[in-house]
């Protein structure tokens, strides 16, 4: 007899497009509530984001010079966080009708004053570094990223 094993991340992604019969099996296995938890409620830490996306843990980036390693580690974390909150959907950067939302941070000259100040969106322009990997599909997700993950974003911006 063969057995099918499925982890939580795969179950959640398959559930969206599953037939009613498969949905029932998944709900019996994981519980109906499991599939009703919104992404903003289930992604509260970097570990949650890694689980959500199935991405491996942060590489050590020993391929880059030592003084750049923390910057690349922080960038990887933010990419995974954005991917998790966007539920693994990628942007079409050339699609003018698709707005890309970003958290904006206030640094105010000190680490202690750092924090989210506003979220903004763009559609036909993009500035250096603000690629599709670091944008959010809506203001709500950008705000969650800016508040829950401000330390990761601060590292990426300042290191």
């Amino acid at each position, binding site marked *: 007899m063969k057995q099918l094993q499925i982890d939580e991340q795969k179950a959640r992604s398959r559930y969206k497009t599953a037939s009613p019969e498969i949905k029932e099996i998944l709900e019996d296995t994981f519980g109906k509530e499991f599939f009703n938890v919104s992404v903003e409620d289930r992604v509260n830490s970097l570990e949650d984001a890694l689980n959500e996306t199935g991405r491996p843990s942060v590489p050590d980036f020993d391929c880059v010079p030592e003084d750049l390693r923390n910057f690349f580690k922080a960038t990887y974390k933010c990419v995974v966080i954005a991917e998790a909150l966007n539920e693994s959907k990628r942007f079409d950067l050339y699609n003018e009708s698709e707005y890309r939302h970003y958290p904006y941070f206030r640094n105010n000259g000190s680490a202690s004053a750092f924090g989210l100040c506003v979220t903004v969106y763009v559609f*036909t322009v993009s500035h250096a*570094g603000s690629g599709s990997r670091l944008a959010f599909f809506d203001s709500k997700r950008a705000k969650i990223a800016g508040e829950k993950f401000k330390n990761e*974003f601060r590292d990426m911006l300042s290191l």
Partner: protein
Amino acid sequence: MNSEICYHFNNQLKITNMKKNQNLDKIKTVEDAFQATGRPQVDFSNVPEDLKEFFESTYNAVVVTEALNDSKKPDWDNWSERKWRPWFNMSASAFGLGDAGYVRTCSTAGSGSRLQNIDEETAEYSATQFVDVWKGVQLG
């Protein structure tokens, strides 16, 4: 909510023969940037395959920015220091520089000190001379 975003969108064409930043005459290719900074070429084989292009492009952009900034890294916590970055028109047929803007007290995701320039002229040059590098960062 009070935001102190200070974009400077200058629509006037600037014609200048003398570049303030002498590096703009020296750094014309990614290889020039590697040579000027002494940074090594790297292989991002330790990141997931679909993220390789993004990280390679980001690394190249960091090296180019460092070379053009004469290895000066903008002080992200220094309010009085303007940090310039290019803005791009996102069009499949005409990806390229839209303008250069600066910020002081705010910064958005991805626009950290490693990717910002010390002046407007440098930001504009970076975007036009290294458009493929930036395209990789935006789309990779």
